[in-house]
């Protein structure tokens, strides 16, 4: 099951906790992976850990040119991009009434527009190959909302609508487009929360614990696999029961 031998995968945001776990899982299933992110150091460390079949392709996705350039770089390194995992994302949290245009726009640029541009660039070879997988990492807050994250929740919800529309267009070409929506996952980002904050979060999670990055990676691996060829336009929620939607 879930053998990706001979497949190539580009993972954005691979320097982060979840992105690193996704790249590791795809690589373990046999895929050649291209690791992208803004911080080259952690990408190099991860590539060194993975060993063969791992390439580093840094990019800053807030730059319009960088997105299409990234797909080209990844294809040059690996020969193709069969699987695109749009995991890169940023937060610029603020109460809605205090949110600046800049905070709104930065999140839209990377989390929504960046995914649009990357997916568009990756589609052409996927169409020709009659096979492709696009997996977009969204968030539970895209479905539930979250105070202080109006920009982030809007971008993540936007990804769901975008993914479904694209899924319609390319389904007949063997390309699936799906979302994975993590709940609260233990990463360096959540480590910085206070015990009080963590306690409040955990009280809303039926599973009684935060998720592990590997649990998101497993969902991505499934959707990227040949076995998931009949699943498209779906959002797989991985949140410990926090929102049953």
């Amino acid at each position, binding site marked *: 099951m879930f053998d990706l031998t001979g497949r190539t995968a580009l993972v954005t945001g691979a320097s982060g906790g979840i992105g690193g776990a996704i790249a590791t899982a795809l690589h373990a299933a046999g895929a050649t992976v291209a690791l992208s992110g803004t911080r080259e150091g952690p990408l190099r460390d991860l590539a060194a850990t993975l060993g063969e079949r791992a390439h580093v392709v840094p990019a800053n996705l807030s730059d319009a040119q960088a997105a299409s350039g990234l797909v080209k770089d990844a294809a040059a390194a690996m020969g193709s991009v069969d699987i695109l995992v749009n995991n890169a994302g940023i937060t610029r949290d603020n109460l809605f009434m205090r949110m600046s245009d800049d905070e709104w726009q930065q999140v839209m640029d990377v989390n929504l527009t960046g995914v649009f541009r990357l997916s568009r660039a990756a589609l*052409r070879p996927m*169409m*020709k190959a009659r096979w492709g997988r696009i997996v977009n990492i969204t968030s539970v807050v895209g479905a539930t909302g979250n105070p202080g994250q109006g920009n982030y929740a809007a971008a993540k919800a936007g990804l769901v609508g975008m993914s479904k529309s694209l899924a319609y*267009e*390319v389904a*007949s*070409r063997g390309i699936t487009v799906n979302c994975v929506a993590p709940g609260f996952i233990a990463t360096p980002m959540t480590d910085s929360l206070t015990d009080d904050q963590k306690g409040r979060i955990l009280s809303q999670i039926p599973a009684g614990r935060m998720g592990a990055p590997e649990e998101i990676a497993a969902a991505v691996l499934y959707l990227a696999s040949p076995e998931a060829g009949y699943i498209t336009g779906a959002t797989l929620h991985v949140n410990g029961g926090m929102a049953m939607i």
Partner: protein
Amino acid sequence: MSDIADRVKKIVVEHLGVEEDKVVESASFIDDLGADSLDTVELVMAFEEEFGIEIPDDAAETIQTVGDAVTFIKGAV
């Protein structure tokens, strides 16, 4: 038939899986050859690759028939 027209025909036959004798200059990709809108995008991509040219989106929209494609490509190569 020029070389370009032959190559265009071949791409259309292969891509749309239609009979060669139906691929005449006046044939519309969508109305006569059963292409959907995504097929036309893919045809343009295939033409770009075959002839090493760039077909901008506004030009691609004007390419409705086999003859349109041949005419455009002749002007572009």
